[in-house]
């Protein structure tokens, strides 16, 4: 385990959804510490609360109770606008379905993340290095429809890390990829973690994929087991 500073500190995080008259307890007291530079794999069956936990960590939805701190900032005390700010700079998302904007080229998909975060005029050296590492420099002028799944996911990773977030949240990043592309994307995430010290939390069903992380935690029925 890394001895870096705490990037995520979650204590007894609970999330209850109301579906009609029924209360759904998606998280039933999740506690987790993640230090800078860690690559944590989160495994568990469908419905175990992995995605809900990620959505809370990414500021997409607030927890119902418990405490959760990202870089010392208390998520429960954050307003909607504060969580928007968190997503701009502190968190980067990688989704199973890539979620690139279909009307923009790969380069513009990455550029819009910088535009939203207001970092367009920043230093490009590290970004160029990342692009080199991702191996997509020659495909940046293409729209997502012209890219393979593996290429789209690399663009999505580039977009997620372009603003140098504290945490990269990857939700089943290889779920739509074949074995070869899955291995390439996982190796890429491991490289980003090793070379750039990028903190990564990755959801996966696949134990082989989970093995790319430096630590694995398992979720079941809304708890870490």
């Amino acid at each position, binding site marked *: 385990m890394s001895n870096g500073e705490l990037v995520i500190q979650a204590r007894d995080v609970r999330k209850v959804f109301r579906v009609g008259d029924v209360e759904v307890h998606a998280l039933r007291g999740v506690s987790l510490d993640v230090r800078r530079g860690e690559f944590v794999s989160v495994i568990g069956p469908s419905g175990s609360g992995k995605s809900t936990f990620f*959505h809370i960590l*990414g500021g*997409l*939805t607030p927890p119902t109770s418990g405490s959760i701190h990202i870089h010392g900032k208390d998520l429960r005390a954050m307003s909607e*606008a504060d969580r*928007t*700010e*968190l*997503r*701009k*700079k502190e968190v980067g*998302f990688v*989704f199973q379905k890539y*979620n*690139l*904007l*279909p*009307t*923009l080229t790969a380069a*513009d998909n990455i*550029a*819009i*993340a*910088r*535009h*939203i*975060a207001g970092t*367009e005029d920043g230093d490009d050296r590290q970004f160029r290095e990342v692009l080199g590492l991702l191996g997509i420099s020659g495909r940046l002028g293409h729209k997502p429809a012209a890219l393979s799944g593996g290429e789209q996911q690399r663009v999505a990773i580039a*977009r997620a890390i372009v603003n140098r977030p504290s945490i990269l949240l990857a939700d089943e990043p290889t779920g739509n990829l074949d074995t070869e592309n899955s291995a390439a994307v996982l190796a890429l995430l491991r490289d980003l973690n090793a070379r750039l010290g990028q903190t990564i939390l990755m959801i996966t069903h696949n134990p082989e994929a989970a093995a790319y992380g430096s630590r694995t935690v398992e979720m079941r029925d809304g708890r870490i087991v």
Partner: protein
Amino acid sequence: MINKLVVANLKHRPVRTLLSVLAIGVEVTMMLTLVGLSEGMLEDSARRARGVGADIIVRAPGTSLMSLSSASMPQKLMDFFAGQPHVALAAGTVVHPIGGVNTVTGIDLDEFNRISGGFKYISGGPFRRPDDIIVDDFYAVQNKLSVGSTVNLMNRNWRVCGIVEPGKLARIVIPRATLQDLAGATGKLSQIFLKLDTPAHTNQVIAALKEKLPDYQMYSIEELTSLYSVSNVPGLSAFIGVIIGLSIVVGFLVVFLSMYTAVLERTREVGILKALGASPGYVLGIVFRETVLLALAGSLLGIVLTYGSRWLIMTLVPASLTQKIVPAWWPIAGAIAVFGALIGAMYPAWKAARQDAIEALSYE
């Protein structure tokens, strides 16, 4: 960057974009054509009034300058005016509506020739019979008339005796006595034109005449032509207002439907933007920029279409309607189109901005 996304979104659905632009273009053309017709026809009327060559026009008490008035002035007044100081010539006319915006004017040709210098005949010549009719070139072309043709007006056949250059008094003229008989206005006139020995005396003569005939309406031709404006035509401003209101409604509906479907279709993309940290304001900005771009493109198209509508009018009904291109109204019509479009985009934009990111990301 945001502009790139906006343009890319519009290009992504070219048919929807083109239809929206076309609908806004028609909205703008509707406004510009109406204003152009109003101004064009008033200007045309002013030009024809100037073409008479008179200095003063007299109309009966209580008549409106802009509306058609029945022949209600006694013809004997001509002698009175002819005897006034500085009045060199007087010519009386009878104006009778024949449907739509068209009128037929009865004149005494000799009297009219003296005051105006006479018509310039393209073909044919003056009246020779009581049922002769003189028309201007526009009317002849529109109705495919030539000298010797028969034209039916006021339930009666007329023989075209002359086709003249446009721009003098009226498009259709017939002998005054005939029209007075037909209109049941024997010995009555609609208006009297006065020519002075020198135009410099115009105001002085009007003042003197008003003392003697205080109820009659008298204007210098200069004043008359300046009064030919939209605001002086009863009801016209209100009519234009109604058309503008309808245009705003059309723009609102078109943009509402267009942007609403666009926002629904892009639910997932809104979720992606929100996951990247886009604020509700950022999402609103995208929808509103797209809307403004559609409205501006529609306005440009509308301006171009206005030239098309003018060509159509000039080709089909040159004698009935005259459309002017009014560049001063381009920014006004554009602003109205943008305003209507922005109102139409409000709900879709609000819906997009309020979209829950997690729900949007799971939208298929």
